[in-house]
């Protein structure tokens, strides 16, 4: 059984190689379509350059080579972990990204867990009480959360909880005035996490609630549920264990599919809450027109999505024995 899962994992891993290649290609083409090349940028920073100097610069960076040679060069660089150089900050792009990635994950992972947990709970509740006022309230809440732009929800959260009630900090990751360490530091960071994590989770919680409701409703009508009821199992066992486990599958698929949206939403949420993560880095790169850095972030985020898809695939295999058999 364990071998089956490993085999499945190896197969999925092999399938993601062409996707990764494609992502790198798209990234390269995007960089090529930017007006002006590296030589123009460097010449611009120096003020002026003679045509001879430009030619020399282009030759030095390989910009006079055919496009496919340049791509092979870029591909080799990326695969060896060299994402280029941020000419604005004079630091390798990968260093900047690795420095910020933990902060982003600190937002994304709890947000994903919160969204999946609360979404499945609310969706399950709505399905059990389908047609009642509880279902109605949850459905309206889901519709509203679905329509609310994340960054706006974040701003309104700041107005209510940070400015008026003063329960939570306005933004940032930790209190800059206090020099904390140990447990107080953890608690302070947690306090700073509440608003951004909830904001980021809002849309996805609605998504999973909606999906869970539909999926549990349909699996409650299956024959095996009737059998389970007939043999006298408790409602909890029938709904949570028998129907719930099967209803979980579409939700898991959706978590994998939505990984990219979560990363994208992170940019806006981090900008709103001045959270020092990848999204904030992307926004700064945008302001400084630091395309190398911006495209490096696109690349790393895509790899994150591939990894998340891979993990959900594995979970899928564990949750559904039928998938394993394939």
């Amino acid at each position, binding site marked *: 059984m364990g071998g089956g899962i490993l085999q499945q994992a190896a197969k999925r891993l092999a399938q993601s190689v062409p996707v990764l290649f494609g992502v790198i290609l798209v990234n390269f083409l995007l960089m090529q379509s930017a007006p002006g090349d590296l030589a123009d940028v460097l010449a611009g920073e120096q003020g002026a350059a003679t045509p001879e100097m430009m030619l020399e610069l282009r030759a030095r960076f390989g910009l006079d080579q055919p496009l496919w040679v340049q791509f092979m060069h870029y591909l080799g660089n990326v695969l060896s972990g060299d994402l280029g150089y941020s000419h604005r900050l004079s630091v390798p792009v990968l260093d900047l990204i690795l420095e910020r990635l933990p902060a982003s994950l600190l937002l994304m992972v709890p947000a994903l867990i919160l969204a999946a947990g609360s979404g499945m709970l609310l969706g399950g509740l709505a399905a059990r009480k389908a047609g009642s006022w509880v279902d109605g309230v949850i459905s309206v809440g889901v519709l509203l959360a679905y329509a609310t732009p994340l960054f706006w929800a974040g701003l309104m959260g700041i107005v209510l909880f940070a400015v008026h009630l003063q329960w939570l900090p306005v933004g940032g990751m930790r209190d800059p005035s206090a020099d904390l360490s140990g447990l107080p530091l953890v608690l302070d960071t947690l306090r700073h996490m509440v608003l951004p994590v909830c904001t980021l989770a809002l849309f996805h919680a609605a998504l999973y609630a909606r999906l869970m409701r539909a999926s549990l409703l349909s699996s409650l009508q299956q024959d095996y549920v009737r059998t389970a009821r007939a043999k006298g199992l408790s409602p909890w066992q029938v709904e949570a264990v028998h129907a719930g486990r099967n209803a979980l599958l579409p939700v898991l698929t959706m978590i994998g599919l939505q990984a990219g949206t979560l990363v994208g939403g992170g940019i806006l949420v981090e900008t709103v809450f001045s959270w020092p993560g990848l999204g904030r880095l*992307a926004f700064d790169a945008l302001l400084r027109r630091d395309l190398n850095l911006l495209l490096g*972030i*696109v690349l790393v985020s895509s790899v994150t999505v591939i990894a998340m898809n891979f993990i959900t695939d594995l979970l899928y295999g564990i949750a559904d024995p039928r998938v394993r058999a394939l």
Partner: protein
Amino acid sequence: MSRILRLLRTPRGIASLLLMLLMVGMAFSAPFLYPGDPMDMVATPSLWPGEDPEFWLGTDLMGRDLAAGVFHGARISLMVGLIASITALLIGTVIGSIAGFAGGWLDTALMRTTEIFQTMPPFLFAIAVVAVLGPSVENVVLGIGITAWPSIARLARTEVLSVREREYVAAARCAGTPTTLLLVRHVLPNAISPIIVTASVLMATAMLTEAGLSFLGLSDPNLVSWGSMIGVGREALRTHWYMAAIPGCALILAVLGLNLLGDVLDDILDPRRQA
């Protein structure tokens, strides 16, 4: 027909129609109700809503009428949402239906391409496209359109796959219909309705993306959109929160209307569902 009317008369149906009517009405009436540039300074800055009856939604930090901004912003938001979703719909339908209809290596190649675009985080990808090509309405539309099509392509492929083996398609094939005509004339019309239904949800997503982009400053600086108004209002968030709240409410209502419309269309299309 009576079934459609019955579905439209449900609370959801009525709410979606009213909201859509409101949004389209705002977009069309903006030049008449609020002539002149909504970016012009017309009154005392930072008027609260209701403080001056002439500016019922108040003014922003630079003395611009928020009501004029919300009405004119409806034009940009709806237009960008509409054109971007049509772009995504076209790309997705073409790629998905060719993949589903052709099968074989072409199917594999096209679906792998779709997977690549689905892997790149759509919002980040849209940011990169607009950042590389420059902030203009056309590039925003392109950025959203180029990132939103993969889900449509998957849907179109599934629908075409289910239609392509039907008997009338086989009959048309036997009658010697050329392949392109077979796809365009016989397969697509029977596969298109679920795709059309998703268009309203696609437009809602496109409007949210546009708002996010212009909130970050990635939009035409000379045009007012709801996202850019929220971005401006953010600077006075502590003291004058209504400046960010009002355009956000307009956006929520528009997106809500489109999502509800999608639900209703879905019900109309599925004959098993009752009103």
